[in-house]
């Protein structure tokens, strides 16, 4: 190969090798020395100088997130050629600039201590030994060569060039490819097929809706693209100049989505279809301008009366009517098909909701079919593969990017069936539940280490590129397939691309050609720089009712067993289908609803708990016909009294040190037997047995009640429209001091401040401040992970969380409202970080000035000066100061996790206090940049990690002294208030009160 093509083949790989541990910027363990004074002894320069790599300066690459099928685009921040932070790509129509907690935690997949060092082969005795890639590929080639057409591939990869290659590869062999993703919307697609005659997943325009009705569907957590949904939700449901959509949630459990509803109604599990149909009936019978062909449904719907629905759901008939009318009188959107409420009647339910949307004229408006959302083959396909396996008709099984042994109920016996395959290959980069049964493990490269692309939505073609040298000796599965193809030849000889990168570029050159772009290199560089191609989404297809629409109906879904409680497993918004379970950032990021970390738990309604006489933390055993599990109880008002709920995602038999043996797998109680090609999660009844053993819950929640202290303020929509302040809503703030006293106090304060014009405090300075809009904040906790990533916050582990020692600088406080003696139950969330008070109580008590106030209004904490008296922590009314009780970074950051550390932030040593710094390293960095360019700092040039990550745009950061800045203006909002204002600590964080619909009807 000529040097030129060589450049072509492997651009930047060697330009992207990161400095070895002793690097100038102190990468790796060296970075842990943080607040102590150990120093780096060796200087290791780059081998080859690189124009876009200056040590000490961040380099950004565009890439794509693979933590869930949503396909959010990334900007990867690298320093000294190692990825240190993931942020959203502002150009992406899916996630804009924001990113969820799971996406950001992708980094801990990249640097996961559990990653395999190389390929492994299982010996006869079941133990694994390391082999070379050459051996591994030879082995695989031999197996494939001899297997003929009995090669089956199980892949969780999304639509994209890799999947296309896989299809070609398997196709050439005559084998079968099963594309399986755990949360695959099978029911929704089946329902769409039935009602609209097309089996694809539409786009849901939450942003356009004025009334959102969710049937137990957690669209803010795991349903479809969480970030995309949340951005839309914030747009419509976030209060802005007199407008705010109403969100009603019907379901047996108040999940994060339910917490963000203006109304939550605990309906009986499995009753959603009939409720939807009853509403459709109400609408259709009361409303003229329904779509023409909707009329044909009248006869069918007439059967579904609110009264009947009420009996099924426990929801009052008038409530059903009221909601239906509100639904019809707004530009509305109803969603169904959430995993948490996927019972055996899920298809009916989705169909019913389709009808509801249709009769309200939402289809084509807020529900748009573009055919852009790719889906996998569904659970049905997996079942047929399982039977193939069972019949021993599979010679070679290749499992890629999927973990069926964990994500499929044990009751289906998938593991045993898999064992019947002649030869099993896994491409997992961590020994997960499935890989630990494979004969050959060929660790794939992490998405940030390899070339790839995805087509996650209409008009989006997202690219991935290696942003750094592989952390471990993995190999891109694409390359492996091609190499096998070369070795095997024969049927595979058609696949002659020298590498997957070449294959990818070939396909993209076709795209370029199709777009009439002649110079591919320019096109390619643009595409790489932008992170792919983001085209205008095509207009939606015109969708009409299909014949199947008339076959809608309702019969009560069946539940296995005769236990007294319906068992409701639900996907965890942090762990998703379980792939998050090996990432400490996600394990320690409290569940947004229960605020529990690192553990599995069983949710019980207070009445249920009382009747059973169990308390929080008591370990109970749940038994269903399919199995049993033991987990501690969490008493939660937001769960239907007849239901016990448990999150999915834990209970791995293998998957690295963090996941293995942690918690329980809720699927153990569920059967795989289903109705129609999907896995019915909500299909078992359980009996509950007390063990009288107790386990302390690792939860960050102290007392869930506000005790009337006005921490998380909220106001009715009506009040907000009238421009009332939170104080006015409470009946006005009563001043205890007289006029003259108030003046005197203010005057005295001023006099004090005038004396502060000394030293660095002379002259004009910015005053950094923040505004948090509680009307937008959903509590999704993306900001928490962003803070961990940006500020080198150590995770502390289950036991330390139990002792209340979590270090999370950003804490989402979740408060319960009402719920007692009949009044409606609701929750409020308030992000709590250092308030950077002007009269900070923590500062004067520090004997050594470790806590002090900077000229630009920051409450600074000088780690290396701190002696650790912790007086500041005691005196902080917001309790946002966190103390290094033990040497957490040294104890917990196992290799190669330290490679992720941000070199601009000191790693705190044992015995010092730390807290939110308003991302001072970003401020100082921007100030340096501005100074180098001899210009003042512009508003918006610097923002905090939390604000940057927030999908709802609930956080605004900037200079309060600059009257033109966004933050200064937002702080003027009539909803603005300060938490614990009476203490006169003058926080720099202004909260905008939450706005709630209700009381209008």
């Amino acid at each position, binding site marked *: 190969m000529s040097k030129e093509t060589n450049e072509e083949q492997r651009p930047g790989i060697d330009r992207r090798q990161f400095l*070895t541990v*002793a690097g*100038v*910027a*102190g990468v790796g363990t060296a*970075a842990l*020395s*943080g*607040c*102590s*004074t150990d*120093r*780096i*002894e*060796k*200087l*290791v*320069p*780059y*081998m*080859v*100088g*690189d124009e876009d790599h*200056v*040590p*000490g*300066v961040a380099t950004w690459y565009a890439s794509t997130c693979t933590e869930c099928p949503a396909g959010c685009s990334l900007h990867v921040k690298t320093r000294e050629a190692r990825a240190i932070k993931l942020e959203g790509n502002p150009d992406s129509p899916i996630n804009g600039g924001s990113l969820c907690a799971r996406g950001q935690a992708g980094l801990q997949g990249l640097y996961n201590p559990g990653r395999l060092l190389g390929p492994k082969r299982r010996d006869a005795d079941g133990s694994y030994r390391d082999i070379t890639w050459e051996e591994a590929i030879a082995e695989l080639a031999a197996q494939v060569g001899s297997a003929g057409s009995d090669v089956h591939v199980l892949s969780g990869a999304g639509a994209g060039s890799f999947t296309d290659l896989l299809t070609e590869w398997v196709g050439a062999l005559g084998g079968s490819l099963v594309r399986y993703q755990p949360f695959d919307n099978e029911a929704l697609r089946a329902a769409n097929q039935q009602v609209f005659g097309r089996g694809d997943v539409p786009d849901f325009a939450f942003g356009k809706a004025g009334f959102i009705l969710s049937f137990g569907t957690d669209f803010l957590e795991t349903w479809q693209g969480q970030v995309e949904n949340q951005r839309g939700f914030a747009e419509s449901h976030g209060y802005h100049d007199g407008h705010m959509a109403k969100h009603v949630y019907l379901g047996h459990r108040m999940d994060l989505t339910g917490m963000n509803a203006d109304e939550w109604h605990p309906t009986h599990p499995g009753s959603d279809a009939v409720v939807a149909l009853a509403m459709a009936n109400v609408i259709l019978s009361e409303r003229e301008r329904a779509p023409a062909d909707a009329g044909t449904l009248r006869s069918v719907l007439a059967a579904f009366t609110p009264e009947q629905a009420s009996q099924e759901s426990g929801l009052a008939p008038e409530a059903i009517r009221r909601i239906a009318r509100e639904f019809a009188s707004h530009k509305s959107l109803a969603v169904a098909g959430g995993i948490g409420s996927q019972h055996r009647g899920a298809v009916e339910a989705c169909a019913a909701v389709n009808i509801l949307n249709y009769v309200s004229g939402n289809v084509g408006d807020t529900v748009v079919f573009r055919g852009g959302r790719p889906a996998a083959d569904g659970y049905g396909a997996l079942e047929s593969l399982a039977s193939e396996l069972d019949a021993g008709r599979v010679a070679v099984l290749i499992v890629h990017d999927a973990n069926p042994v964990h994500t499929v109920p044990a009751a289906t016996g998938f593991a045993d069936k898999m064992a019947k395959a002649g030869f099993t290959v896994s491409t997992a980069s961590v020994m997960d539940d499935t890989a630990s049964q494979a004969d050959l493990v060929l660790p794939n490269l992490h998405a940030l280490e390899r070339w790839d692309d995805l087509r996650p939505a209409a008009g989006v073609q997202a690219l991935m590129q290696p942003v750094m040298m592989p952390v471990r000796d993995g190999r891109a599965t694409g390359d492996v397939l091609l190499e096998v193809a070369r070795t095997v030849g024969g049927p595979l000889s058609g696949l002659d691309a020298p590498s997957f990168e070449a294959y990818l570029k070939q396909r993209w050159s076709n795209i370029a050609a199709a777009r009439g772009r002649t110079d591919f290199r320019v096109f390619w560089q643009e595409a790489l720089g932008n992170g792919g191609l983001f085209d205008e989404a095509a207009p939606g297809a015109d969708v009409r009712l299909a014949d199947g629409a008339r076959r809608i109906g309702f019969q009560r879904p069946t539940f296995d067993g005769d236990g007294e409680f319906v068992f409701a497993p639900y996907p965890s918004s942090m762990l998703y289908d379980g792939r998050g379970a090996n990432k400490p950032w996600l394990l320690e990021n409290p569940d947004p609803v229960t605020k529990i970390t690192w553990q599995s738990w069983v949710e019980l309604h207070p009445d249920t708990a009382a009747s059973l006489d169990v308390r929080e933390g008591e370990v109970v055993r749940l038994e269903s016909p399919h199995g049993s599990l033991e987990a501690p109880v969490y008493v939660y008002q937001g769960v239907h009294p007849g239901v016990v709920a448990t999150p999915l995602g834990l209970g791995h038999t293998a998957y690295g040190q963090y996941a293995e043996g942690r918690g329980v797998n809720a699927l153990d109680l569920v059967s795989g037997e289903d109705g129609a090609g999907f896995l019915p999660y909500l299909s078992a009844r359980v009996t509950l047995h007390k063990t009288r053993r107790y386990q302390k819950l690792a939860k960050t929640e102290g007392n869930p009640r506000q005790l009337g202290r006005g921490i998380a303020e909220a106001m009715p929509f009506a009040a907000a429209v009238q421009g009332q302040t939170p104080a006015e809503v409470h009946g006005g703030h009563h001043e205890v001091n007289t006029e003259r006293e108030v003046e005197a106090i203010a005057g005295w304060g001023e006099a004090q401040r005038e004396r502060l014009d000394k*030293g*660095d405090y002379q002259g004009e300075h910015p005053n950094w401040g923040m505004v948090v809009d509680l009307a937008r904040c959903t509590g999704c906790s993306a900001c928490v992970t962003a803070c961990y990533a940006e500020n080198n916050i150590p995770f502390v582990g289950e036991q330390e969380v139990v002792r209340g020692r979590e270090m999370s600088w950003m804490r989402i406080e979740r408060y319960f409202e009402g719920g007692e003696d009949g009044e409606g139950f609701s929750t409020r969330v308030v992000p709590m970080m250092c308030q950077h008070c002007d009269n900070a109580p923590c500062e004067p008590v520090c004997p050594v*000035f470790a806590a*002090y106030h*900077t*000229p630009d209004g*920051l409450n*600074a904490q*000088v*780690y*290396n*000066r701190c002696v650790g008296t912790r007086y500041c922590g005691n005196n902080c009314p917001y309790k946002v100061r966190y103390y290094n009780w033990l040497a957490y970074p040294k104890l917990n950051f196992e290799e190669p996790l330290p490679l992720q550390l941000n070199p*601009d*932030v*000191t*790693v705190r040593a044992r015995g010092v206090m730390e807290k939110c*710094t308003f991302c*001072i*390293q970003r401020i*100082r960095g921007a100030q*340096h940049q501005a*100074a*180098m360019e001899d210009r003042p700092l512009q508003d918006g040039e610097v923002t905090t990690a939390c604000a940057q990550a927030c999908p709802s745009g609930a956080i605004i950061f900037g200079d309060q002294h600059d009257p033109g800045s966004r933050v200064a203006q937002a702080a003027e909002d009539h909803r603005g208030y300060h938490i614990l204002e009476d203490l006169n600590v003058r926080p720099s964080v202004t909260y905008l009160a939450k706005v709630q619909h209700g009381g209008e009807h």
Partner: protein
Amino acid sequence: MRKLVLALGVCTVLALGALAFTSRSAVWQGPAPGDSLAAPTLAAGDTAGLPGPRQPIFFRHDIHAGQYKMQCQYCHYAAEVSQEPGMPSSQTCMGCHLVIAGSDSSSRAEIAKVRDAHNAGEAIEWTRIHSLARHAHFPHMRHVKAMGPDACMTCHGDVARMPQVFKVNNVTNMGWCITCHLERNVTRDCSACHY
């Protein structure tokens, strides 16, 4: 009253003592008029006699920066644009040393080391001389911009006269920074460096 004055006196004396203690290390004043920059001829064997740690390659700052008057930033380019001064890649060396083989046997030997390392793709592990604690952030570019070409010498000493680099000033000592910032009346705010 006399007591008060006396007490004040005591405190001031103590403070002055502290000041003297910290600012004793010399600040480079620029080359004395008329002294030649011609570097002595030295072999790698002589390094033992020279101050400073012995480096894997006997790189002669006194030849490069002294005799040939190369700007520091020619090799340490990052110092102008980044917090980190960085170390020049062996490619930078080869830029010149593809053609320059060295005047005498000893220098030829040293240059050969660089070439071999570069061809073999091995990184050269230089022994670090100035190393700041991790909790202090020192933006090199700001200082270079503010103090011009002589900025480097203020802290690193007259490297142009050092056959083998050694530590002149105790720059890892906070007193060193503060003294300078006081003299130049620039910020002393803790959070300018500590975060």
